[in-house]
């Protein structure tokens, strides 16, 4: 859509705010409402709004389907790695106490890393699902 419309101007104004809000929900989730899941969904909705207004090709030049697939696996891997570090250090799976010298700061670090993993996976699954639906070409019978 090359025409400048009300929708495109409003979304240009809104999308940075949505992205910043999603990062706020991600990194401030321990102190206020929110967490990885909410942040991921909000982040993905900003991308979906962008591709609805400016076209799916422009959006895919920012994050392609392949990148999104890799990031979605990366998020799950971060989560699993944090769990495995616990086993490596001689504690239980997903035991955050061993991540740092002080158990409380270890817990904070563990929750922070795990939330990043959740956020990455959720955001990229939503983007991948949206891309798949948008690229869907069904042969009409």
């Amino acid at each position, binding site marked *: 859509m090359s025409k400048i419309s009300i929708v495109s101007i409003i979304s240009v104004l809104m999308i940075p705010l949505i992205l910043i809000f999603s990062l706020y929900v991600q990194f401030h989730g321990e102190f206020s*409402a*929110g967490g990885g899941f909410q942040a991921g969904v909000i982040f993905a909705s900003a991308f979906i709004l962008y591709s609805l207004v400016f076209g799916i090709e422009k959006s895919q030049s920012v994050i392609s389907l392949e990148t999104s*697939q890799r990031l979605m696996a990366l998020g*799950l891997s971060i989560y699993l790695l944090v769990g495995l570090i616990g086993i490596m250090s001689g504690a239980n799976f997903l035991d955050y106490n061993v991540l740092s010298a002080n158990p409380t700061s270890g*817990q904070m670090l563990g929750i922070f890393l795990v939330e990043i993993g959740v956020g990455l*996976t959720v955001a990229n699954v939503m983007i991948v699902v949206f891309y798949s639906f948008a690229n869907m070409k069904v042969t009409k019978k």
Partner: protein
Amino acid sequence: MMTRNLLWAVLASSIFSLLTATIFFILDAVDVSLTEAAVGAGIATILFVFTLKHLEINLKKSKSNNTILGLSLIVIVLLVFNLMDDFPRFGESKITQNSNVTEYYLENSNSEMGIPNVVTSILAGYRAFDTLGEVIVIFIAGVSVIGILREEKENE
């Protein structure tokens, strides 16, 4: 609300999700409210519309047996109304059987985890294994969507 237009039905469900998100917000469940507003009202609606674009369904032609459906709905509603007295009262503190766990979380979350948001500390801390399962489920859902829709592309 009854409609035979699928687009209207999708929009109605989107508005319903938004209202539900408002109710969650009023009940102080801000995390759930954020999720409901973004997923239920936003992303799900867009995916429904994308799917509708590819469907050619004429509901006026399809003849479903509405009397059986209506009767069974009435029976279900009556059953639920009958059971409503057994539900916990609104705002009751001891709504779960294991309320000891709830009190433990509320008292020790800040000293053990060092973060004030109890929801986050339960989800990512005490119940981290459950959340891992949730993330895996979401991941599998994404992988399945890729698999199903990509196969359709190659069949062309």
